[in-house]
């Protein structure tokens, strides 16, 4: 199968930077997927393309898993769901929340595939309590470089299992997985909002709220001086029936019909600039700080607020954007976060909302989370932004942190090698299993994974 370059699809991630012309295959069956792998080209799995950069496209071709979207089995007793890797998180939630089950770890969008959630080892706002998604994977079936499918779990092919969680699809193609769902009593979330004046107060508030299940802070990255890092910290729990008003207590799993807006076009230039961001943030904080201290939200609004505007990435215009997400180990977090925010504020760049979360213990390997704080900020892509991100890399390295591969679109290899731990072991496993040749993405080539 050869394709002329000009007929190749233009592939990009959620950040719409970079856009690369590269082959994209849509196998109908697992047999066809295995045949593609055996053909000898170097491939990478592509799910719903919600990672931000260049990790789901490859010079040899991306292999779309969107047709592998079947649920296979569900055990009500254990809560274990077996499914093909191309099933969307949204489909799992739509099917099982009404039956009183929830996915123990969910990222900021529900339009990700289960395979993608494993490959990026996604985390939620409850990392401290629940760990990352990988902690809830019972087993997975991996189509390996030799064309064989291996069932991997902590007990079986344990090393391969561990490397695949957070392995960015570079150990093989995840075909099926079994994940454990949790019981919930309602489809609602009880949220308490705390306003903090600056970054120190925010970190103190995080350290004082370990009892809360879900914790996330929205911070103003453009505030300066005294107000540097002012934030709204949301602490949430799955609601119990008693938390619900009488009117919905009878149907605790039914949430109101969603009204979604859609961004219909690409703006010619980014609508995100110093002026709009400053205005938005002022309003958001003025309103947010006045809003009720506690609220009750359908799970969709609580966990996936940005999903309510489809294609919101288009407001950054044709040039796209990059999200910088790094984690700083606990010891250096306070000073590191101050340094990052000062650099961003000084540059006058940054997105409407930046997100800060507290991580508990990590899994190691390429899996992103480790104990500390993680900051995520969007930047409209430009040369200036690119230079700022290099500056942020240096601060991250200085404080012993590293960046999130699912968000990364640009990290230079030298900087990446200085920050990422466990790289040697991962490369060795890739060489040993033959996956280094068979599974490659533009990102893996850029970073030498």
């Amino acid at each position: 199968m050869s394709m002329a370059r000009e007929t190749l699809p233009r592939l990009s991630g959620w950040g719409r930077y970079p856009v690369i012309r590269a082959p994209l295959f849509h196998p109908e069956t697992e047999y066809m997927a295995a045949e593609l792998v055996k053909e000898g080209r170097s491939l990478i799995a592509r799910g719903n393309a919600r990672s931000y950069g260049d990790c789901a496209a490859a010079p040899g071709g991306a292999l779309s898993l969107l047709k592998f979207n079947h649920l296979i089995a569900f055990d009500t007793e254990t809560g274990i769901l077996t499914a093909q890797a191309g099933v969307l998180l949204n489909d799992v939630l739509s099917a099982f929340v009404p039956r009183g089950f929830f996915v123990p770890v969910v990222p900021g969008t529900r339009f990700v595939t289960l395979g993608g959630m494993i490959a990026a080892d996604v985390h939620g706002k409850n990392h401290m309590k629940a760990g990352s998604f990988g902690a809830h994977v019972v087993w997975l079936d991996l189509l390996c470089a030799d064309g064989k499918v291996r069932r991997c779990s902590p007990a079986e092919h344990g090393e391969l299992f561990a490397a695949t969680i957070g392995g960015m699809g570079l150990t093989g193609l995840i075909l099926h997985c079994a994940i454990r769902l949790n019981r919930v009593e309602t489809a609602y979330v009880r949220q308490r909002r705390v306003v903090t004046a600056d970054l120190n107060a925010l970190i103190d508030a995080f350290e004082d709220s370990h009892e809360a299940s879900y914790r996330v802070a929205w911070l103003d990255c453009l505030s300066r001086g005294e107000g540097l890092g002012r934030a709204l910290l949301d602490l949430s729990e799955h609601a119990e029936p008693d938390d619900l008003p009488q009117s919905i207590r009878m149907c605790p799993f039914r949430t109101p019909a969603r009204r979604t807006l859609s961004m219909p076009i690409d703006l010619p230039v980014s609508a995100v600039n110093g002026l709009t961001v400053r205005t938005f943030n002022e309003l958001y904080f003025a309103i947010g700080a006045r809003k009720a201290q506690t609220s009750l939200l359908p799970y969709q609004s609580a966990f996936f607020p940005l999903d309510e505007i489809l294609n919101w990435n288009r407001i950054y215009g044709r040039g796209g954007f990059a999200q910088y997400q790094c984690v700083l180990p606990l010891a250096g977090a306070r000073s590191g976060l101050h340094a990052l925010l000062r650099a961003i504020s000084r540059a006058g760049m940054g997105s409407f909302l930046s997100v800060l979360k507290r991580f508990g213990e990590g899994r190691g390997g390429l899996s992103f989370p480790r104990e500390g704080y993680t900051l995520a900020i969007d930047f409209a892509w430009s040369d200036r932004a690119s230079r700022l991100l290099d500056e942020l890399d240096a601060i991250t390295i200085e404080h012993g942190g590293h960046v999130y591969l699912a968000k990364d679109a640009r990290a230079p290899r030298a900087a990446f090698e200085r920050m990422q731990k466990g790289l040697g072991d991962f490369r060795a496993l890739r060489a040993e299993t033959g996956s280094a040749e068979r599974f490659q993405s533009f990102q893996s080539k850029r970073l030498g994974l």
Partner: protein
Amino acid sequence: MTMQPRQGRRALLIGATSDISRRLAHLLAADGIGLILAARDCARLAPDKADLELRYRVGVELLEIDLLDPAGTRAALLALDPVPEIAVSLVGEMGNQASQQDDPALAARAIAANFTGPALALETLAGRALDANVPAVLVGVSSVAGDRGRARNYYYGAAKAGFTAFLSGLRQRLAATPITVITVKPGFVATRMTQGMDLPAPLLDSAETCARLIKRAIDHKRLIAYPWKWRLLMLAVRAMPEGVFRKLKF
């Protein structure tokens, strides 16, 4: 997990391995409608059955039928008990125009797969619904290709034109009965059938869009379901004088 299929309406989807049918199955099941998925090779649908049952907690049955075998199809449809309240024929086969010109067997196959096969199946189902006095909704997925024959696919187009005329006649015959007959005329849909064809992107609908069109037509008993842009386009195409149309290359 034990399934408790809800008692209630059932829909028969003929040609259930097609991309449009797969999407339509989700839309129907989401409304609690049980499914009978019929196809030539229905073993391929076993994963779909498990998936649909898990997601929507409806009963899903598989039925092996081949519309190229009218007698076998008729027997299988007569054996269905009870008569499904909704039946949709999504069967279609483009074939290769040049081969159809050269080989009468392939030309006959195009007519059987796109016209006589689906028509006879819906005729059988109409008869059963009439006998059982079931207010059934019968849907035939035809094509805009049947609106005017083109050099590129006139066996396919002629068969679809025949099918469209059949549906119109059946609808008129059953006008005084509780049975509704719906004609669906999709334009270009991105499916396995059109994969690799060079089609204009603005006119190319997704299988999901097409399935939604069919679902809306069933819900509202809309007799003709036709995407609006195609309705306009085909109005112009049909109005064109033959002398002009003959010289066009599209």
